[in-house]
C-alpha cells in the first residue's frame, strides 16, 4: 500500500527540490530498503516528463570490498560511474541504511582509501552542480536502523522525518518550502555583512573569520529536509576552542565529547571521550582535514532532537555546526580535502553568538528577524 507521505515526499523532491523539467535525465540512488521512496520519486519524475532511472546500491557490498578487496579494487573508480556523472542532469541520493554501523569495524586505513576513491565522483558531481549543469538532492527514507539510532520506534521516526520535510501534515509542502526559502535567503544575505563570528557556550569560545565569503541558504533544494544557512570560513582565521556535546558520526563510527582547539585556522589540539583514535585518523587524512570547510546555523525547528544522522542533526533549530575538511568553492572557500565532517554544537541552552562584537543570537534563536530579501530586478 502506498504511504501518502512518501508519495508527497517524492513529488516534493521532483517538483521543488530538483524542479525537474521534461526530457531531463535523473538518476535515483537508493539502497533496497529505500525502494518505496525511490519508486515514488521515479513515478513523480515520469509525471514531470523526465527520464528517471534507479541505481540501487546493495548495502553489503562496501563491507565485502573493505574486507576482501585488493589495493586495486579498493581504489578503483568505475569508468562507467565516471561517465554517468557526466551524462545525467540530476541525481537524487537516498541515504537510508538498514544498519548504520555495518562498517564500524572496518579497517580505518582501508576505509579512508575507499572514501578517497568515491570522493573522486563526488567532487566531479559538485563541480557540475556548481557550474549549474547538474541538480542534486540528498534525502532519507526512514528505516528501523535510523529509528534505532534516534532511539525511537519506526512509527515515531517516520513522523519525525516526514514532519521535518513538511509532508506529514495536510497542506502544501511546496508552499511551505518556498516561504522557508525566502526567510533563509534573507538571513544569508544579512550574514554576508559580517566579518567575524564569535561563538560562546559551555566549553566553547571560538572566533571565525567570514569576511568576503558568501552565505548560502539551504532551503530544501540540495537536502530534504533542510533548513540552515552556511558558509566556508576563511581558512586561516579560526581561533579558540569548541566543544561538541552531541556525538559526532562518520561512516558509522561515533566519537563522543569532541573538543578542538584552533590556531591560525588549524586544529592544534583534539580530544574525545571515546573514539579519539578515529578522530586523529580523520584529522590526519590530508592537508585540508585539520581546517574548517563550513560554519552554519541550524534553523529547522521541526527538528528538535539529536538523532545520530547529520542530514537532520546539522539542521536542528538552535544549533551551529562546523565541518572539518572540504569547503564550498562557490562560496569563496579554498580548503581542499577528501574529508567533510560535520560536527554539531548545541547552543539552545547557554549559547551566544556575536557578529563583529554584537550579540545576534541567544539560546538557539537569532534576536532579530532579517530584513526581507531585496528583489533583484
Amino acid at each position, binding site marked *: 500500500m502506498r504511504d501518502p507521505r512518501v508519495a508527497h515526499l517524492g513529488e516534493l523532491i521532483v517538483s521543488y527540490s530538483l524542479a525537474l523539467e521534461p526530457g531531463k535525465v535523473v538518476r535515483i540512488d537508493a539502497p*533496497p530498503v529505500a525502494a518505496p521512496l525511490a519508486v515514488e520519486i521515479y513515478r513523480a519524475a515520469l509525471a514531470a*516528463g523526465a527520464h528517471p532511472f534507479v541505481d540501487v546500491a546493495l548495502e*553489503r557490498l562496501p563491507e565485502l570490498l573493505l574486507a576482501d578487496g585488493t589495493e586495486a579494487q579498493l581504489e578503483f573508480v568505475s569508468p*562507467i560511474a565516471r561517465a554517468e556523472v557526466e551524462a545525467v542532469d540530476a541525481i537524487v541520493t537516498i541515504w537510508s541504511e538498514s544498519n548504520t554501523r555495518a562498517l564500524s569495524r572496518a579497517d580505518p586505513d582501508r576505509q579512508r582509501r575507499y572514501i578517497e576513491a568515491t570522493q573522486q565522483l563526488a567532487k566531479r558531481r559538485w563541480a557540475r552542480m556548481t557550474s549549474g549543469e547538474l541538480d542534486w538532492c540528498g534525502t532519507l527514507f526512514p528505516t528501523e536502523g535510523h529509528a534505532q539510532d534516534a532511539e525511537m520506534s519506526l512509527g515515531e521516526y517516520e513522523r519525525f522525518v516526514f514532519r521535518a520535510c513538511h509532508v506529514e501534515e495536510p497542506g502544501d509542502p511546496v508552499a511551505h518550502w518556498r516561504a522557508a526559502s525566502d526567510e533563509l535567503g534573507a538571513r544569508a544575505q544579512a550574514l554576508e555583512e559580517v566579518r567575524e563570528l564569535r561563538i560562546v557556550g559551555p566549553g566553547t569560545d571560538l572566533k571565525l573569520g567570514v569576511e568576503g565569503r558568501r552565505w548560502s541558504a539551504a532551503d530544501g533544494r540540495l537536502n530534504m529536509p533542510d533548513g540552515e544557512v552556511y558558509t566556508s570560513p576563511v581558512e586561516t582565521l579560526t581561533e579558540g576552542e569548541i566543544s561538541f556535546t552531541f556525538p559526532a558520526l562518520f561512516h558509522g563510527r561515533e566519537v563522543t565529547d569532541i573538543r578542538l582547539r584552533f590556531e591560525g585556522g588549524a586544529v592544534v589540539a583534539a580530544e574525545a571521550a571515546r573514539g579519539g583514535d578515529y578522530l586523529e585518523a580523520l584529522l590526519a587524512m590530508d592537508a585540508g582535514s585539520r581546517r574548517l570547510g563550513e560554519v552554519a546555523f541550524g534553523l529547522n525547528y521541526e527538528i528538535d532532537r539529536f538523532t545520530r544522522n547529520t542530514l537532520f542533526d546539522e539542521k536542528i533549530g538552535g544549533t551551529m555546526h562546523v565541518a572539518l575538511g572540504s569547503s564550498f568553492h562557490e562560496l569563496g572557500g579554498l580548503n581542499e580535502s577528501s574529508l567533510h565532517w560535520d560536527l554539531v554544537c548545541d547552543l539552545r541552552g547557554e549559547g551566544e553568538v556575536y557578529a563583529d562584537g554584537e550579540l545576534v543570537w541567544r539560546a538557539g534563536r537569532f534576536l532579530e528577524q532579517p530584513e526581507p530579501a531585496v528583489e533583484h530586478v
Partner: protein
Amino acid sequence: MSERLRRLADVIVGYSAGVKEGDLVVIEGTANVEPLLNEIYASVLQARGLPSPRTTLELDELLLSEGSEEQVEWVSPAEREDVERADVWIVVDAPSNTKALTAISPERQAATQRARKALRERYLERALNGELRWVLTAYPTTAAAQDADMSLSEYEDFVYAAALLDDGDPVGRWRAFSEELQRAAEFLNDKEELRIVADGTDLTLSFGGRTWIAADGHENFPDGEVFTAPHETGVDGTIRFSYPAVFRGRQVDDVRLRFEEGEVVAATAARAQDFLEEMIAVDEGARRVGELAFGLNDAVGVFTRNILFDEKIGGTVHIALGSAYPECGGQNRSALHWDMICDLRSGSEVYADGELVYRDGRFLRF
C-alpha cells in the same frame, strides 16, 4: 542454501564468465535477488576483477503503464555505458512476479523491444568481436517456483541440480558436459539440412555453411544445448510447439506456425493469439527463424515456464523467431528473440540430410 548460492556464484564467475584480474564486470540484477548479487560481487573480488554493480528495482510495469511513448522508448546513458565498457556482463534475471506485465498492451512492449534494438545489437557485436563476455543466469525466487508448480525448496533443488552443483566438483562436471556438447555440434556441422517430424510437426530447416555452437555454460548458466542460425529463407513446413510459448510473462498456448521460404505465413494459438501476432509483427525479422537448437541437459527434465531452463530440457528442440546469433553466421535482425520449444521425447524423429539421426529425444550417434 547460502553454501549452494556461494558455489553457484563461484561457478558463474570462475567457469562461465572466466573473470580475470582487471576485468570490468557489470553485475546486473534487481534488488530482489540481492543474496546472489552479493555472492557474485564477492566472487568477482576474489577473482581480482573490478565489479560494477548495475542493480535496479522492478520498475517496468510502472514505466509501461504511466510513462509517455518517449519515456518508454528512452534508453538510459547508464545502459549505454555498460554496453560500451564492460569486459564481462553477468545478468541475473529473476522477477518477483513473472506476470506483472500482463496488463500492458502488446504494442507498448513491442515499442520497448524496438527502442532497445540498437543497444542489443551493439552488445552482440562486442560479444562477437571477443570484447565482451556475457552470462545470463537465474535465481530461485518464489515467483519462479510458482511458475514451475513447485515449492520454493523443491525449485531450489531443481535449479542447483540443473547447474550440476550437487557434487563436489561442479567445474569438472561442466568441462565434461562441454566435451559432450562439442561432439554434438561437430556432428551437426557436417550436415546441411534437418527435417523434424513429430505430432503436428514436419519442418525442414537448411543451415549448410552455418555454425553449430555448443552452449556449455558460458553465456547461459545453467546451460546445455547446441544451436545454430538456419538460412533465413530455408525454413519450410509446419511446427507445433508442445510447451506454452512464454515471452515477458505472457503465455501463448499451443502455437502452430507454418513457414514458406523462411517466413511465417500462418500462426495460430489456442490462447493469446493476438499477442503472438503482435510480436511477430514487431519488425521484418520477427517473422523469420533466428535460431534452431537441441536441448541436451538431462538434469532439466520438466517444463518450468522459464526459458533459461526450458530450452535446455534434454530431448527437446527449439526455434526462436527474430534475431540470429552472428557467431553462427546468422543474418536475421530483429528486436525480437522468442524461443519456442517442442518436446521430442516421444513419437518424434529427426533426419539430417535424409538420414535418421535422432529419435524420441536422443541422438542415435555422433
